[in-house]
C-alpha cells in the first residue's frame, strides 16, 4: 500500500469514544471554528516513514559529531563560539516548549487529518532539544573555555536575557491551542526559522562550527514539515468566515510577539555574533521574512479578508537599529550573562556604518565607553558608567529602549494598583487585550532591586569553579579575569529606574 492510500485508510479509523464526552476528550476548547474542517496534510507522514526519515537524518548528523569528537579539524572562531553559550541556551528552551505545545495541540484540537503530523512535530521538537543539548555537550568537551556551556540549561531558566524567549514561549504554550498553531507554525516556523536555521547555518560553517551548522540544517529539515502543518491548519480555518477576525487578532499579536523575540535574536546573532560578514541582519530579515514570508505567503491570504499585521510598519522600521540596540543591552549588562564577549572594533564599525548609515553617530559612544571599562583593575563597569539598566517591558521582556534609545516611547499601564512598563505600541496593544496573562511575571527589579551586582551574579550562579571568577568576561582574552571582588569594588547596586509616563486605560 502506498502512503497516499495509507493516509486515507488511517483517517477512516477515527472514532469517538463512548466512555467520555467530547469535552472531556478534548481537555481544552478553542474559540476557533475547526470542528468541521477537513484539512490535507501534504507530508502524510506515518510512524514508519517518520522513523526512516529521522534515522537517515540522525545517521548523517551524528556521524559528523563522532568524527568531530575524534579529529581536531579547524579552530572555530571564538566570537561565535562564546556567543553560542547564550544562543544555544535559549534554543533548547524554545524547542522543549514547542514540544509541549504540540502535544497539547494534538491532544486537544487537531482534526484527524493533521493529528499524525502534529504528533510527529512533537517528536521533532524533542529531537531538536536533544540535538542542541548534544551540541552543548560537544562544545563543553572540546571548546577551550567550557564555562557557560556547562550551565546553559540552568541559564535558560534564570538569565534576564533569556526572559525574552521564555516569556514568548510561555505565552505560546498557554494560549488558545489554535492560536498556538498560528504563533508557532506560522510565525516562528514559517516566517523566522528559515532565516535562523538555514541563513545562520552559513555563518556557523564560515566560523568553523560545523556541529552547529549541521544541527541547524537537520533541524530545519523537520521545520519544513512544520511549515506544512501550519498552512494545513490555517487553510482549514480560512474555510470558515467566522474565523477571519479571530485569525486577524492572532496574526496581529504573534507577528509582533515573534518580531520581538525570534526577530530580536536573529538580528543580534546575525550582526554581532559573527566576524565574517556577507549580509547584514536587516538584509537577511528583509529577504527571508519580509519578502519570502510576508510577500510570498502572507500577502496571498489578504484575498480571504486578512489585513497586513497591525504593527508591520514598526516591524520594518525597527530593523534599522534593532541589532545595535540589542547589543547595547547584551554587552552593557555583560556581568549578568555567562560568556566571554568580543567587543566590536574598527572593522565592525566600518561594516555597520556601510549597512546602517548613522550607526557610529548613535552607537559609537557606547562602544567607546565599553572599551574603556574592560580592565578589572580600572574598577569601571560600563553598566554603571551609562546609568544602569533601563526598565523592562512586561510583555516582551526586552529593555524599553527599542528601536533606539532616543526613539523609544516607553509607557506604563496600571493594573491592580501596580504600574507595568511597556516598550511599544505593539506590546501595549497585547497587554491591553489580556493584561492578566502578563502581570504575574516578575521583572529583573522585582528579583534583584537593592542588591549589589556581585550578589546578583552569585545568585544567578554565573561563577566559575573557583567560586570567585565570573563566567562572563568583557573580552575574549583578558589580561586578568573579572572576579566577584572586582565587581563588588565597582559599587553598583541594582536600582529601579523611574517609571515611564503612565497612560490611561481609556486612551489606547
Amino acid at each position, binding site marked *: 500500500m*502506498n*502512503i*497516499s492510500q495509507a493516509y486515507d485508510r488511517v483517517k477512516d479509523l477515527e472514532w469517538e469514544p463512548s466512555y467520555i464526552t467530547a469535552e472531556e476528550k478534548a481537555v481544552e476548547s478553542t474559540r476557533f471554528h475547526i470542528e468541521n*474542517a*477537513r*484539512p*490535507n496534510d*501534504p*507530508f*502524510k507522514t506515518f510512524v514508519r*516513514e517518520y522513523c*526512516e*526519515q529521522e534515522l*537517515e*537524518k540522525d545517521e*548523517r548528523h551524528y556521524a559528523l559529531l563522532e568524527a568531530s569528537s575524534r579529529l581536531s579539524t579547524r579552530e572555530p572562531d571564538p566570537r561565535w563560539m562564546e556567543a553560542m553559550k547564550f544562543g544555544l541556551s535559549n534554543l533548547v528552551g524554545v524547542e522543549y516548549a514547542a514540544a509541549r505545545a504540540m502535544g497539547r495541540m494534538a491532544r486537544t484540537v487537531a482534526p484527524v487529518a493533521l493529528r499524525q503530523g502534529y504528533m510527529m512535530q512533537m517528536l521533532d521538537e524533542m529531537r531538536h532539544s536533544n540535538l542542541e543539548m548534544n551540541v552543548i555537550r560537544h562544545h563543553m568537551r572540546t571548546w577551550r573555555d567550557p564555562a557557560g556551556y556547562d550551565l546553559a540549561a540552568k541559564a535558560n531558566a534564570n538569565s534576564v536575557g533569556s526572559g525574552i524567549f521564555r516569556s514568548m514561549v510561555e505565552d505560546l504554550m498557554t494560549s488558545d491551542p489554535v492560536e498556538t498553531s498560528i504563533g508557532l507554525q506560522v510565525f516562528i516556523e514559517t516566517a523566522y526559522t*528559515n532565516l535562523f*536555521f*538555514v541563513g545562520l*547555518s*552559513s555563518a*556557523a*560553517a*564560515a566560523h568553523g562550527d560545523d556541529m552547529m*551548522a549541521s544541527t*541547524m*540544517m*537537520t533541524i*530545519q*529539515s523537520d*521545520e*519544513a514539515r512544520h*511549515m*506544512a502543518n501550519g*498552512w494545513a491548519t490555517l*487553510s*482549514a480555518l*480560512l*474555510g470558515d468566515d467566522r474565523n477571519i477576525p479571530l485569525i486577524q487578532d492572532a496574526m496581529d499579536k504573534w507577528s509582533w510577539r515573534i518580531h520581538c523575540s525570534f526577530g530580536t535574536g536573529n538580528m543580534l546573532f546575525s550582526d554581532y555574533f559573527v566576524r565574517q560578514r556577507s549580509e547584514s541582519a536587516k538584509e537577511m530579515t528583509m529577504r527571508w521574512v519580509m*519578502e*519570502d514570508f*510576508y*510577500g*510570498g*505567503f*502572507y*500577502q*496571498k*491570504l*489578504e*484575498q*480571504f479578508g486578512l489585513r*497586513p499585521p497591525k504593527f*508591520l*510598519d514598526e516591524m*520594518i522600521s525597527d530593523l534599522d537599529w534593532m541589532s545595535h540596540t540589542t547589543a547595547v543591552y547584551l554587552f552593557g549588562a555583560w556581568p549578568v550573562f555567562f560568556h566571554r564577549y568580543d567587543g566590536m572594533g574598527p572593522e565592525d564599525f566600518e561594516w555597520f556604518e556601510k549597512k546602517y548609515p548613522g550607526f557610529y553617530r548613535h552607537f559609537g559612544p557606547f562602544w567607546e565607553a565599553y572599551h574603556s571599562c574592560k580592565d578589572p583593575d580600572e574598577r569601571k563597569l560600563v553598566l554603571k558608567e551609562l546609568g544602569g539598566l533601563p526598565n523592562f517591558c512586561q510583555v516582551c521582556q526586552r529593555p524599553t529602549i527599542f528601536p533606539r534609545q532616543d526613539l523609544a516611547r516607553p509607557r506604563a499601564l496600571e493594573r491592580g494598583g501596580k504600574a507595568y512598563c511597556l516598550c511599544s505600541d505593539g506590546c501595549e496593544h497585547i497587554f491591553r487585550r489580556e493584561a492578566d496573562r502578563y502581570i504575574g511575571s516578575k521583572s529583573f527589579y522585582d528579583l534583584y532591586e537593592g542588591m549589589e551586582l556581585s550578589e546578583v551574579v552569585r545568585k544567578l550562579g554565573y561563577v566559575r569553579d573557583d567560586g570567585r571568577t565570573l563566567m562572563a568576561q568583557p573580552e575574549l582574552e583578558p589580561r586578568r579575569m573579572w572576579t566577584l571582588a572586582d565587581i563588588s569594588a565597582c559599587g553598583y547596586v541594582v536600582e529601579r529606574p523611574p517609571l515611564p509616563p503612565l497612560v490611561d486605560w481609556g486612551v489606547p
Partner: protein
Amino acid sequence: MIELTGNDLVSAKLMAGEEGEVIAALMAERVAGLMVTDHESYIDLSAVGCDLDFDMAAIGEELGFPYSVSRFLAVLATYKGDIEVGDDRVVIRVFSPDPANPRLP
C-alpha cells in the same frame, strides 16, 4: 500602513553535499530559469512562477542508486511555496491559495 507586495518565488534549500549537488545539477537541466546558489552549508534552488518537481526515479538515475522520498526529505532543509509529498516525487508549487477552496491550493 505599508502595503505588502506579493511574489511567486518558489525555492528549495538543499543541504550541501554530494546528493544536494547532483539534485541541483539535475534540476538546473530540467527547470528553465532556475537559479542555483551555493551558500556553503546549503544550496539554494530558486525559480519564479514555476513548479519544482523532484522525481525520485530521475534523481536515483543520476546518483546511481535507488532514491526515495525519505532520503530526499533528509536533504531538503526547507522550501518556499506549496509542497506536496507523494510516494515517488515531491513537488513545490507557487503558493497560490484558492479562496473558494483554501484547503486545496
